[in-house]
C-alpha cells in the first residue's frame, strides 16, 4: 500500500493533511494493519491543546493499544465521530473516512515526507 504524497508523516505512524491553518490527523494504513482490528478509539475533546509528539489519544485493537501522538502544537477543533462509533473505519479507510482529529495550528513542525515514511516502513 502506498502512502499518499499530499500529506506529511511522523515516525509514530500518524499522517497530517494541511488545509489552511487546520491539520487533519490520522494513523497510516501501515499502523492500522500492525494494530489489527481497531475496536475502540479514545480521542481528545474539542478545545484540548495538543503538544508536538505528546500522546493525545489511544487506538485499541483486540490485541493491543496504540498511542496517538500529536504531530503538532495546536488546538483540537474537530473529532471524527464516525471512528468513535465505528472504530473499524480506521482499518477500512485509514487515509480517508478513518481520520481521527482536526487541529488548528500556527506553526508546523518539520515532519516526514511520504517518501521518507515509505523508507521507514520498508515500502515503496
Amino acid at each position, binding site marked *: 500500500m502506498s502512502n499518499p504524497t499530499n500529506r506529511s508523516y511522523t515516525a509514530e505512524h500518524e499522517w497530517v493533511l494541511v488545509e489552511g491553518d487546520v491539520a487533519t490527523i490520522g494513523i497510516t494504513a501501515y499502523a492500522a494493519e500492525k494494530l489489527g482490528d481497531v475496536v475502540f478509539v479514545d480521542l481528545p475533546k474539542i478545545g484540548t491543546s495538543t503538544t508536538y509528539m505528546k500522546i493525545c489519544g489511544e487506538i485499541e485493537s483486540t*490485541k493491543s493499544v496504540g498511542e496517538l501522538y500529536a504531530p503538532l502544537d495546536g488546538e483540537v477543533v474537530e473529532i471524527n465521530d464516525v471512528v468513535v462509533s465505528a472504530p473499524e473505519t480506521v482499518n477500512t479507510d485509514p487515509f480517508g473516512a478513518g481520520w481521527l482529529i482536526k487541529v488548528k495550528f500556527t506553526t508546523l513542525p518539520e515532519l516526514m515526507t511520504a517518501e521518507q515514511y515509505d523508507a521507514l516502513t520498508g515500502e515503496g
Partner: protein
Amino acid sequence: MPQTPLHAEHARLGASFTDFGGWDMPVRYSSDLAEHEAVRTNAGLFDISHMAEIFVQGTGSATFLDYSLVGQASLIENGKAKYSLICNQDGGIIDDLIVYRLADESFLVIANAGNRTAVVEALKSRAATLGFVGVTDESDDYALLAIQGPHATKILQSVTDTDLSTLPYYSIGEGTVSGVHTYLCRTGYTGEDGFEVLFNNSEAVNVFNALIEAGAVPCGLASRDTLRLEAGMPLYGHELNLDVNPYEAGFARVVRLDRDDFVGRDALLELSTKTPSRKLVGLVGEGKRAARADYPLYSDSESTVQIGIITSGALSPTLGYPVAMGYLETDQSELGNTVSVDIRGTRLPMTIVKLPFYKRSK
C-alpha cells in the same frame, strides 16, 4: 526462530507473524474479529504444530504418568483424554497439558510449545527415578491442526472415512484425512466443538489445504487467544506459571490427592488444606476499554492498595464488553464483588463473574 512446516502456506495466505513460545507463528491472516467469528459460527483452522507431542509407551507407562502428573492417567479409559498439570516438588505448575490414552500402556501427552524443554526434562528425570524408559519427544516429527467451530465436524467428516460420531468430546481415534494417517482428537482451545488432527510433518501442506478446500477458515493466534479467553481457559505464562499452584488457579479437581506418591504430593496435600491467598477469577467491565495483562486491581476507585492483577483481557468479540481473567486476594474474590482496574491511569469498575464468559449452546 523455528517455523512450522506450514510457514510458507501461511505467508502465501497473507498472514502476519508473531513470536509465540519461541516460534514464528501466524497471528492473523486478515482480521482477528472475522477469524474469531468464523470459529464461533462456522469453522476455523489453526496451525498449532508448535505444540509438543511426547509419547509415553511400554510397560509401566500408566504408573509412570501417575507419578509424574497431578492427575491419574491410569484412570483414563483407552481412547479417552484428560486435562492435567505437571507440577514441581513445591506444587508450582510446570505446564498444563492433555493426556490421551492410546492403549493400556501407550499415551500421548500434548504440552505447550514454550514449555517443551521443561516438560520433557521433568518427565525424563521422573522416568529415571522410576527406571522407566518409554518417554520420547516426537514434537519435531508431527504437524498439529485444530479445526474448531459448529461446522468443524461436518467439514472434517468430508475428508475422512472415520465416522466422527464415534469420537465423543475428549476422546482420540485414528483415521485417514485426505489420504494421510492421523490421530483425531476431539479436543480444543476455543470453547467450540472440534478436533485436533495430528499427523506426520511431511503431509502438513496437503492436509492443511484439504481442510481449507473443505470449508475451514484459516485463523491466527490472535483469534485463538480471544476465543480461549471467552471460554475461560488458562494460558500458560498468563494464568499459570511456576509460582502459581493448582488451588489458586481453580484446578483442585485436577489434582488427585487420594493416592500414594506423585511429584508435588506433599506440597499439594498441605496447600489443599488451606485457603489459598489469591484466586483466579473472571471479570467483566462496561464500555469498550479492555483491561489487559498486568494491569493492577484495587478494591475501589479510590484505593491505592493493590489487591490483584489482570492476567489476560480483551474486549470480547462475541459478547461486546470487556472480559478478563486475573488473580485477586481470596477475601476480595467473591462472585458479584466489584473491583477497580487501573487502565493506563484511568480507573474503571469490573465485576467478578463465574467462568467461562462464553459457553456454546449444545
